[in-house]
């Protein structure tokens, strides 16, 4: 059915609601990229098969729904049961008949499939009670994991397009702008620019043709919130964009999606087709007289294309080279016409802001950073996954209460935020409330919301070098300070990790960093020194150890590190199995020995040792030992 009026939309909403209520019992199988990787599709199919085969859909009233990412990717495939609110983790397709038998028919819980809290080892049956979920407040991710992203009616039953209907029929474009301004929402893609201010400046630009774009490039490694939103609730992105277009008087939109996100493209395309069919997109939306079209453009795999001017060039079929900032894309953007570009999460929040009011959104968060923010919590943390929290939540709360603490209870060392433009935040700052200002003050950035937890087995010189190597590869090469500065810095870092560092290297790094910050054309080069400077600021002693002692305190840099097995080794052979060079000798149940000549210092043995009996020490000591 094509919706031609506000009343027809309300009727459709009611229908969708009824359809949803008609099936109160549901099995929600997470089918995000993470869970699909561990076999979620097979699990969902097995449930459908089992349920229909036994006629349970009619008898017990259970329906199976493939949803977007539940966020708790490491425990996947995840299966939730409604209305009980039970969550099973690591479900395998072959266990589905047993689950149907015991849980659906027998109404008993299978304890082995419940989530085990790594903190107290207790099993928790209820979704809502798991600390990972309990502490979240979801706005942009409101429907992810609850709806089937390929089913428009399901989305509508969960309030999709309600904000759009309200905007089109009850508000003028200026009132929409006022509401967004009241929300205080700032861009979720990196810099945190005020959304309403950006929109106003575009609206004030002369001309009739203007564009609304969505940045789904999500280039920061370690961040995947935009992927999950596009995959799990594509309608929220479309709804936000249509509302924005209405406020701005734009009729053409594009979504720029990373090439690495194939499922996101499929779900967005399907959502666009469905929305168009129902009159929610295209000509005369919901009979309001407003027209807006959205197209998808797949990126070509270049980090710099997340930058706004590079993205617009890429959309125009060119190489993604940024231009100087003094030309504002709100005035001269895509095809040199006024353009608004916002991040996926920014757009996903707009529908909820219009539906619930700007004041509601502004009631969450801190003074200057309103609302909630999505983060991907990854790295050496027990509960990895996707979370959304009010701005101002402390890092400690995120890492320890939600993340369950550091993997294997190793000591915490740092958390990296903001991707390659961000920095590493040390333990002293764990009580930092996370918002745009506080992260910048700490020498990092909000960026795309990636939070990578690092333990004592992480070398900060290596981390800084990692980002430099990343950026050297990704620099578009247009401006000299970025292109050459990165190359020179990387050369110094290569020397550091190979034990060829010199006194004065730190100062040289700092000089180069200052030059890049001042002279680079775009933010890629300007912010490239952040990982370097923040590690220098908080972990200077590690640099000094590399330079002066030719030692890597974390035991990561291979040229500087040797391994040895301690006498408490119980000879379990776990290390001999993983050693790529077969350099560990020893009978079973007897002390093992590493042949230093053949050892390539990869650390595979240390990672698997169950008794923690392998230790690292500086390679220079090895030479000393041999002399003796």
């Amino acid at each position, binding site marked *: 059915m094509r919706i031609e009026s506000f009343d027809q939309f309300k009727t459709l909403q009611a229908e969708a609601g009824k359809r949803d209520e008609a099936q109160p019992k549901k099995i929600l199988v997470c089918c995000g990229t993470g869970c699909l990787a561990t076999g979620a599709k097979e699990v969902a199919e097995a449930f459908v098969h089992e349920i229909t085969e036994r006629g349970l859909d009619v008898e017990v009233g259970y329906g199976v729904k493939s949803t977007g990412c539940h966020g708790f990717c*490491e425990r996947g495939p995840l299966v939730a049961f409604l209305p009980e609110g039970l969550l099973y983790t690591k479900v395998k397709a072959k266990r589905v008949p047993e689950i149907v038998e015991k849980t659906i028919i027998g109404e008993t819980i299978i304890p082995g499939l419940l989530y085990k809290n790594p903190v107290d080892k207790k099993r928790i049956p209820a979704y809502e009670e798991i600390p990972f979920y309990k502490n979240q407040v979801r706005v942009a991710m409101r429907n992810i994991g609850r709806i089937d992203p390929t089913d428009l009616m399901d989305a509508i039953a969960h309030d999709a397009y309600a904000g759009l209907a309200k905007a089109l029929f009850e508000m003028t474009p200026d009132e929409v702008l006022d509401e967004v301004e009241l929300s205080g929402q700032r861009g979720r893609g990196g810099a945190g620019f005020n959304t309403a201010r950006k929109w106003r400046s575009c609206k004030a630009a002369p001309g009739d043709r203007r564009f609304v774009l969505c940045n789904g490039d999500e280039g920061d490694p370690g961040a*995947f919130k935009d992927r999950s939103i596009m995959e799990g609730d594509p309608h929220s992105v479309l709804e936000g964009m249509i509302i924005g277009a209405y406020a701005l008087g734009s009729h053409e939109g594009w979504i720029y999606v990373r090439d690495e996100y194939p499922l996101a493209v499929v779900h967005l395309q399907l959502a666009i087709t469905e929305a168009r069919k129902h009159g929610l997109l295209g000509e005369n939306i919901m009979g309001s007289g407003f027209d807006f079209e959205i197209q998808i453009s797949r990126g*070509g795999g270049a980090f710099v294309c997340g930058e706004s001017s590079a993205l617009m060039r890429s959309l125009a079929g060119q190489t993604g080279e940024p231009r100087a900032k003094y030309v504002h894309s709100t005035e001269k953007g895509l095809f040199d016409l006024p353009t608004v570009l916002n991040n996926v999460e920014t757009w996903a929040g707009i529908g909820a802001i219009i539906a619930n009011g700007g004041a509601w959104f502004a009631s969450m968060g801190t003074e200057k950073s309103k609302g909630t923010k999505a983060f991907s919590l990854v790295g*050496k943390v027990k509960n990895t996954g996707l979370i959304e929290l009010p701005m101002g939540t402390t890092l400690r709360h995120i890492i320890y209460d939600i993340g369950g603490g550091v993997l294997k209870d190793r000591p915490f060392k740092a958390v990296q935020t903001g991707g390659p433009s961000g920095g590493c935040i040390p333990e002293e700052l764990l009580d930092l409330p996370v918002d745009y200002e506080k992260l910048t003050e700490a020498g990092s950035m909000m960026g795309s919301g990636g939070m990578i937890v690092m333990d004592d087995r992480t070398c900060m010189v290596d981390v800084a070098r990692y980002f430099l190597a990343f950026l050297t590869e990704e620099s578009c090469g247009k401006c000299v300070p970025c292109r050459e500065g990165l190359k020179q810095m990387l050369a110094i870092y290569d020397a550091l990790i190979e034990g060829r560092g010199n006194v004065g290297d730190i100062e040289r790094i700092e000089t180069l960093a200052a030059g890049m910050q001042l002279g680079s054309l775009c933010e890629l080069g300007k912010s490239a020194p952040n990982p370097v400077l923040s590690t220098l600021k908080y972990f200077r002693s590690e640099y000094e150890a590399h330079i002066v002692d030719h030692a890597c305190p974390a035991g990561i840099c291979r040229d500087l590190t040797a391994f040895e097995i301690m006498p408490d080794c119980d000879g379990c052979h776990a290390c001999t199995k993983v050693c*790529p060079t077969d350099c560990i000798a020893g009978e079973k149940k007897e002390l093992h020995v590493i042949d230093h000549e053949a050892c390539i210092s990869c650390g595979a043995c240390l990672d698997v040792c169950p008794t923690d009996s392998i230790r690292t020490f500086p390679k220079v000591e090895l030479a000393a030992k041999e002399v003796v």
Partner: protein
Amino acid sequence: MAEQPCVDLSKTEEILASYPHEEPSLIQVLQDVHRAYNYLPCDVLVRVAMVLDVPLAKVFSVSTFYKAFSLEPQGETIIKVCMGTACHIRGAGQLVEELERKLGIGAEETTEDLQFTVKTVNCVGACAMAPVMIVGEKYWGSAKPARMEKYLAGGGEDED
């Protein structure tokens, strides 16, 4: 570049027919071409430049700028090892080394029999399961060098 045999251009014509013949279509066309041929053959680029009315130099500049494109034939199965931050600190480097030992090729290289191409990518958005490796279409989370044989064979279920 080595002399390449002429390729069948009919697929190219089909792709070109489905896009407006203007510069903004360039990247989308190249992506489809890449999917169809598994790389960007030289004579196809010439044809694309002509039909879209874009200078050939520009087509080459775009083809070499983006990571998604390769001007050399690719292996039948593409192995992508994620080198994103989360994967890096959880030992992704060891996966590339193991591949080198098993297949005799490093990153961005193709085996001589055109069976495998190994690529490193910066985050595939599955960071919670780091380190991640994709063999063909199959994602492997918490990938371990010791299980490489299995990943390459493409079978078997993940262990916990």
